[in-house]
C-alpha cells in the first residue's frame, strides 16, 4: 500500500519562527530543540469536520449579537479560503476575535484604559460556502498599547483561526488593515521574514463589497497548505 499524500510544508521564510526575540513573550514560550519532521499519516490528513448546525447565522455578524449596535466604523471582511493549488476550501470553519473600536478586548486580562462596549463581544464564526467564500460584518478594531517594549502599540488587527480539510492545515493568523502606520513597528507583523508573505496579512480595501451608506468592505483571502498529490486510494 502506498503512503499518504500529505500537505506541502511552508516555503522558507513564509511562516514565523517560534523564537522571535523582538516579540518578548516568544522567548520563554518557544521550543529550544529542533522540530522533528513528521511525514503526514492518516492522523494528520484527517481533522475535525464542522457542520452548519453548530453555527448560528448571527455568528458571522458581530454587530448584531446584542440589543444595540456597537460603536465604531462598520466594515465587512470577506474573502475566500484557498489552498496553494488555487482550489477552494469549502465548508471549513473560520473563527475570528478582535478588540472593540476603542482597542479593548472583552477579556479579564485586558486592563487597557479604554471603554468596553456592552454591544460588542468581538467573536465571530462562519463556515465557508461551497466555493470557499466567507463574509463577516463587524466594526473596525482599535489599536491598543501593550507592554512588549517602550511605547508599544499593536496595529489594528483581527485574529483568524481556520481549520481547513485536515489536522495538517490548521492555521491561526492575524489580518491587518492597509496603510496602518503601526505595521512597521510591530514585532508580531514583522515576525515573518519574507516581505511578500508578510504583506499577505494585510487586507485590501474593496470598493465592490463596500455598501453605500452602510459599510466599508475589506478583502482577505487565506491560503492554506496545498496537497502534494492526489490522495491514495485502496
Amino acid at each position, binding site marked *: 500500500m502506498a503512503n499518504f499524500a500529505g500537505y506541502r510544508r511552508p516555503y522558507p521564510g513564509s511562516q514565523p519562527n517560534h523564537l522571535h526575540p523582538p516579540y518578548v513573550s516568544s522567548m520563554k*514560550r518557544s*521550543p529550544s530543540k529542533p522540530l522533528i519532521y513528521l511525514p503526514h499519516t492518516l*492522523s494528520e490528513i484527517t481533522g475535525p*469536520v464542522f457542520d452548519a448546525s453548530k453555527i448560528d447565522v448571527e455568528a458571522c455578524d458581530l454587530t448584531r449579537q446584542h440589543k444595540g449596535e456597537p460603536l465604531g466604523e462598520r466594515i465587512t471582511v470577506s474573502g475566500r479560503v484557498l489552498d496553494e493549488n488555487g482550489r477552494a476550501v469549502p465548508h471549513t470553519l473560520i473563527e475570528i476575535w478582535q478588540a472593540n473600536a476603542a482597542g479593548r478586548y472583552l477579556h479579564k486580562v485586558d486592563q487597557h484604559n479604554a471603554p468596553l462596549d456592552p454591544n460588542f463581544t468581538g467573536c465571530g464564526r462562519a463556515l465557508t460556502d461551497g466555493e470557499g467564500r466567507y463574509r463577516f460584518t463587524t466594526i473596525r478594531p482599535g489599536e491598543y498599547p501593550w507592554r512588549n517594549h517602550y511605547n508599544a502599540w499593536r496595529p489594528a488587527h483581527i485574529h483568524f483561526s481556520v481549520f481547513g480539510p485536515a489536522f495538517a492545515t490548521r492555521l491561526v493568523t492575524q489580518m491587518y488593515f492597509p496603510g496602518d502606520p503601526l505595521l512597521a513597528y510591530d514585532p508580531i507583523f514583522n515576525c515573518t521574514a519574507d516581505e511578500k508573505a508578510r504583506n499577505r496579512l494585510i487586507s485590501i480595501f474593496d470598493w465592490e463589497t463596500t455598501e453605500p451608506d452602510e459599510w466599508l468592505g475589506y478583502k482577505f483571502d487565506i491560503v492554506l497548505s496545498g496537497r502534494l498529490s492526489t490522495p491514495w*486510494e*485502496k
Partner: protein
Amino acid sequence: MNWLYQDELAGPGVAGERIAIAGRILDADGQGIPDAVLELWQANAQGKYAHPEDQQEKSAHPGFQGFGRVPTTEDGSFRFTTIKPGAVLGPDGKLQAPHIVVSVFMRGLLRRLVTRIYFPDEPANAADFALNLVEPGRRGTLVAKRTTEHVGNLEWNVVIQGPDETVFFDC
C-alpha cells in the same frame, strides 16, 4: 474560541475504554502557562477517524467526532476525558500505536506546536513509526503516565522549553 471548548470528547453512549488525561503546560522557567489552549484529534476505539478520507474498513461511531479544545487554568493545568483511541493505519500499511494528535496555542507562540500523546504499557509503542523518529531519551515526553488513583487516569505534561522539553513535530 471558547464556544468550541470541549473537554469531554466522548459522550455517554460512546464505546471504548474511558480515560482522563490531565497535566500542565510549562514555560522555560517551569511556570504554568495560564492562557494556553490544547486542541485534540483522535480516532474512535476502533481506530477510525470521523473524516471522509479515512477509508479503513472499520466502523465509524455516530456521535463521536474525536475533537477537543481545552484551555489551561491559572496555574497552567488542563484536563479532558475521552476514550482510548484504537490503532490507525501508518506508513507502509503498518498500524501506528494508539495516539492522540495535539495542537498547542498560546500568547507568545507565533505558530502552533504539534505533538502527540501515546499510552503507557502499550506494546505497539516500540514499533510506532513516529516514536521511532525521536531519539530514545526524549520519547517519554510523548507517553502519558499512569497515576496511582485510577487505571484510567493519565498524566501528560507539555514542557515548552528546557531539559525536559516535550517533543514537537514539524507537521
